[in-house]
């Protein structure tokens, strides 16, 4: 698999993500700085977590206007798989590659803990290695994970089976307890929890491994 991890000023989970991808695929992902405007032919583009531009203005807003995002939108349009985790998810919504927006957590607290999720669909290159309805534990570490979308948009996500992960219990105020969603083409995934930090026993959970294994199986 040819994968690239995009880093922005303030990204901080790119090393964990690279490690998880390399462990699953045997290939070290390319590291790409956000100022680049072109990408080689790729199978996967990954946007890591962190606090790009210090979360100024709105989380992910400034990063979403980086030169590289035009190229990512082009590749996503061609069907290339794109995953955005945590701040990466916020950037994808701000860039319009995924619908909705991540607002301040309902309880206002920064949440940093393992949470139980439900795999809501296995119909994607990211989730095919899970059973539908399977419970998994990934850590979260976010202040702005409160997924917000209007009723019509939410209905569309549900009707089209595009909710990928759901919090098992109420966590941050997200509509429908949504933790992760897919694009209309199902090749773009955004999620707030961190599967890359649930790939080794030392991290307390290995439930994230099937996500990377799914990608490796689908994309080589």
């Amino acid at each position, binding site marked *: 698999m040819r994968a690239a991890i995009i880093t922005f000023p303030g990204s901080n989970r790119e090393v964990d993500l690279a490690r998880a991808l390399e462990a699953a695929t045997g290939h070290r992902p390319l590291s790409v700085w956000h100022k680049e405007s072109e990408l080689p032919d790729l199978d996967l583009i990954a946007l890591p977590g962190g606090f790009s531009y210090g979360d100024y*203005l709105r989380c992910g807003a*400034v990063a979403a206007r980086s030169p590289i995002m035009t190229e990512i939108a082009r590749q996503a349009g061609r069907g290339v798989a794109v995953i955005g985790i945590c701040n990466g998810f916020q950037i994808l919504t701000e860039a319009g590659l995924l619908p909705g*927006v991540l*607002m*301040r957590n309902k309880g*206002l607290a920064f949440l940093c803990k393992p949470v139980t999720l439900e795999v809501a669909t296995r119909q994607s290159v990211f989730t095919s290695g899970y059973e539908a309805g399977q419970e998994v534990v990934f850590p979260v570490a976010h202040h702005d994970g409160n997924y917000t979308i209007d009723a019509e948009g939410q209905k569309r996500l549900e009707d089209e089976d595009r909710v990928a992960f759901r919090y098992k219990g109420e966590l941050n105020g997200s509509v429908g307890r949504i933790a992760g969603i897919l694009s209309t083409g199902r090749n773009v995934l955004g999620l707030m929890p961190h599967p890359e930090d649930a790939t080794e026993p030392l991290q307390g959970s290995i439930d994230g491994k099937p996500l990377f294994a799914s990608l490796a199986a689908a994309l080589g």
Partner: protein
Amino acid sequence: MRVKVAIGLRPGVLDPEAVAIERSLKGLGFPDVANVKRQKIIELDVGAPDREAALTAARAMCEKLLANPVIESYTIDIA
């Protein structure tokens, strides 16, 4: 020209921070406080020759970056 952009949440979008402010004010002895809303004010020089050009520039800035139309609306004030 100096432009002042006020960005707020669209009606119907719940603002957890505004809710917390309202609750706190009630706890401080202002029981009648209601409908608390927060706005972001951004002031900037746009370098436009006249009001119309300033307004056009400010609108474009709001559409491209300053506001997220999914949840926010904005008003533009020109000094």
